[in-house]
Structures are given as C-alpha cells and as structure tokens.
C-alpha cells in the first residue's frame, strides 16, 4: 500500500487537490482510503464518502497538535486502510504550528500552498515544505506571471522539491501529481517520522498560565537574547 500525506495551511486547497487526485485514481479502478485530521471542524470525510463512495475517516486532534496526532493515529490508520483493501491511503492534515512536519518515511509528502498567499509563504512554513517530496501550488490563475515566478523561486530557495502549479478547481496539471503517485514507493514498516520534532514541551503546554519567564521552567527565552534551559 502507498501512503500519501497531504499538508498545507488552512484554505490552501488541499481538499480540492485531493478531490481531483481521487477522481483520477477511481478512473484507474484504484479505491483509496481517506483520513482527515483536523483540529476542531472538518466535513471532508462526509463529502468524500458521498461523492466518491470510498472509505473515509475523520479525527479531531483536540488537545494534541494535529501533526503529532497524525503520527500517533497513523499506525492504526494504515491497518484500517489495509483492511479496506485500499491500494492507497490519503491523509489530509492541517499542520498548524509549522515547527514539525507530518511526513513519514516511505510515504509521499505533499505540501499544498496557494499562490495567492504572498511570495514569502515558502520561507515561513518550515519543515512542512522542506521535508515534503512535492509542493503543489494552487490558484495559479489568480496572480500575475511575475508573482508566480517569484513564489516558485522562493519555494526553490527554501526546499529542493519539485513544484507543480495547478488550478485544482479546474483539474489543471493534476496529471503531474498522478505521475509522481505512480512512481512512489510502498509503505514499509516500521515507518517513522521524517524530521526531528521540535525541541520540547513547555510549561504552558502543561497548564501554567502565568506570563513571564520567571514563572516557567524547561526551555525558555527572554525577549532580548537566545533560548536557555532552567531546571534539572
């Protein structure tokens, strides 16, 4: 089975891209399973189930960050998709804090970025882009050729990944994604997270609400200098 992990900022067009991908997969009689991981609201699982009649599932990450939630549930999700006899598991996740990436080894990491989000976006999203296998740029029809080129150059400056420019709403250039899916490897166990997770949990994560570094321990940082560690 192949696993595709699709990440990208909210409203970047992940769902629209995956819709087009699913249409093309179904044409080849390949029925994927689809898992959506979001923070507090998602209805893509129902949309995909009713439109394509494929197995779908949705997970709210809740107190976990969505990327971490993805890593934790992915083991079960692969088993679930295998039990569905799917050749492909599509995972759509809303990576949010931009410090780690949801991609795992032996999978296809696909980041979806919208061309309208400003030329500097590629520099801002860290491992979601730099650890991806392919960057899909959506909504290319809405911006000038010049800005498209600047956006693309900024992606290349941030990461060594092939870029596919699409107008996913109209299914334009989805074929290039399909070629990559054709050629990608099958999942191998044990598979693990591709990048290094961020440096550690902070005391705010565990419930301390006071402001100011004096009230916290672990990895801390003052306004004017670099991070330091307080504690044992």
């Amino acid at each position: 089975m192949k696993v595709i992990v699709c990440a990208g900022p909210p409203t970047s067009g992940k769902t629209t891209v995956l819709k087009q991908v699913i249409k093309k997969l179904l044409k080849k009689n390949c029925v994927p399973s689809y898992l959506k991981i979001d923070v507090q609201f998602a209805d893509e699982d129902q949309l995909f189930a009713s439109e394509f009649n494929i197995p779908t599932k949705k997970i709210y990450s809740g107190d976990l960050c969505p990327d971490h939630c993805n890593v934790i549930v992915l083991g079960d999700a692969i088993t679930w998709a295998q039990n569905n006899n799917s050749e492909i598991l599509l995972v759509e996740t809303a990576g949010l804090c931009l410090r780690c990436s949801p991609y795992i080894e032996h999978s296809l990491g696909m980041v979806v970025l919208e061309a309208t989000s400003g030329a500097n976006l590629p520099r801002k999203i860290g491992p979601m882009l730099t650890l991806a296998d392919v960057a899909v740029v959506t909504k290319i029809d809405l911006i000038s050729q010049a800005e498209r080129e600047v956006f693309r150059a900024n992606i290349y400056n941030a990461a060594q990944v092939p870029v596919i420019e699409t107008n996913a709403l109209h299914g334009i250039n989805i074929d290039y994604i399909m070629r990559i899916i054709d050629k990608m490897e099958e999942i191998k166990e044990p598979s693990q997270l591709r990048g290094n997770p961020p440096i550690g949990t902070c005391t705010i994560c565990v419930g301390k609400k006071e402001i100011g570094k004096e009230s916290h321990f672990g990895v801390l940082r003052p306004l004017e200098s670099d991070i330091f560690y307080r504690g044992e």
Partner: protein
Amino acid sequence: MEEIKKITIQSGVGKFGDNEDKIDNIELKMGQVVSIVGPTGSGKTNLINDIALFANRNTPSNRRVLINDALPPSEYIEDPSKNPVSYITQHTNFLSDLPVYKFLSIHAKIRNGHSNNDAVVEETLDFANKLTGEPINKDGSMTALSGGQTRSLLISDAVVIGNSPIILLDEIENAGIHRTRALELLRNYKKIFIFVTHDPRITLLSDFRVIMKNGAIQNLITTNENEKKAVLTIKNIDDLMLELRMLIRDGQYINPQFIRSKIVHCLSTIDGSGSGSDKNQDFSDVPDFHNIHNVQNVQNVQNAQNAQNIQNIHKELN
C-alpha cells in the same frame, strides 16, 4: 533550449463532448499576432488555457498542443524559467504591495540570475508607460496601481523581463490601454501573441482570427487587405468615443457639431478621401458605417453599447 518556431493546436471537442473542432491543425508561427473571438462562453478562455498548459489530451477539450511539431519538453512545466508562455488572464492581478521598482527588480533577478537589472527594469516601466495613459509611479506600491496601469505593467513585464516567446492576453481591451499603440509596439518584439478579444481593432490588427462557438473551433479567418484598411475607420470611431468620454469626465458639454465633424472624418476614411486609404480600392465587404447600429447578432456588450451610442449620435444629428 530549442528556439520556438511555431505552435500547433491539434483539434479536440467543445462543450458536451459531441461538438468537434472544425479545424484539425492550427499553426501559429513566431512573430504572428492571433486573435481568438466568439461570444461569451464560446470557449475562448479554454482554448487559451490549453495553450498555456501545453494540453496533451488531458484537458476537458481533449486538444493537444505541439511546439515545433513535437510534444513540448517536460522542463517547460517543471522549470518556471524555461516556461515559454506568459499568460495574462482576466483575473490576473498583482497581490504584492512592494514598490513597483523593487518588485520588478526581484522578478528580473529571478529571470536573469543576476542583480544588475536596472536597464531592463527601466525598459519595462518605459514600455508600460507607453501602453497606459497614466504614468506609473515607480516608487508607489504595486497594489495602488489603477486597472489600466496594472494591465500595462503585466504586459510589459511579460514581454520585457519575462521575455517569453509566447504571450497570451485575455481581454486586455477592458482596461484602459492604448490598443493600436499596444499592437504596434508588441509587433516590435518577435513573439507569438495570442489575444482573446471582443475588440474589432485588436482582431483586425491580428494576422488571423480563430472563431469559437459552443466550446469548439469553428473557423480560421486571415485578415484581408480591406479589413486592414477598415482598422483606421474603427480606430477613428473608437477614438471619437474615447474623446467624448474624456470630455464628459472633464466636466464639459458635448457639442453635436463636434461629433458631426468627427463622423465626417470617419466616413472619409471609408470612401477613400481620408488619410491612409486608396480611392480606387473596392471596399464592398467593409461594413457600412451608416448601418452599424443595424448589425444583427451584436454579441458583445461593449459593441452593443458602442452601436447604441452611435445610434444616439445619429438621432442627435438628425
């Protein structure tokens, strides 16, 4: 990279799939200016999209686009600096709020790979300023440009900095740019220009036009000598409308005598007594100016409005 000599559009189907293109192969040669015409919804934009994407039987139209009689190299799509097409769509816009000069410098740097681009940026601004009536403030923000300035800059950026061999322009007439001048200036650059247009002037200044209907290519018409001569008349009619618009914008009253003198001048360009035309020429297939308001099937709102305006002028004169 291989020099582009021509593009070939191999036929596909229109809307609903049962409506085939009537021309099997359309060849566009380097240096040509081509218009795509047809009513709204006739598939003009889809055709231009097919060209922009180097369709290979993978778009809804099932058309195929060849470069120099072969499938285009995949680097055209995989490497943006090698993509030979610049496409300016109806909704294309600048989103960057950088100052104009800085933005153009960044684009030039990406295109040319070095940062010494002042000359090419100046040329871009200069070209844009020739296309638009309002000079562009190079230190102003991109997003503060007017519609006409934006279009002019989009075009000149694609032509000069982008230096793309193939330029696709979707309905540029809707933004205030000098059309006749644009066509003249663009012809100085040896490229393939493809216009989606409702504008008679742009169409007749093209080498040929592709006629679209219900999503399919219906016909290919080469601009004939009489049509080329009619451009002057159309330009004069157009200029009259622009002049009236400017007078009204300027808070002035419109004098019917002024309109009469302008129309007499327009007529003189048809019957051959005006500048630039040949008295002995047969103009039988040139549309009769007096009947222009009777033209049936005026598909385009702009044309309909112009016809209405001219009709009103006639009433006024009578």
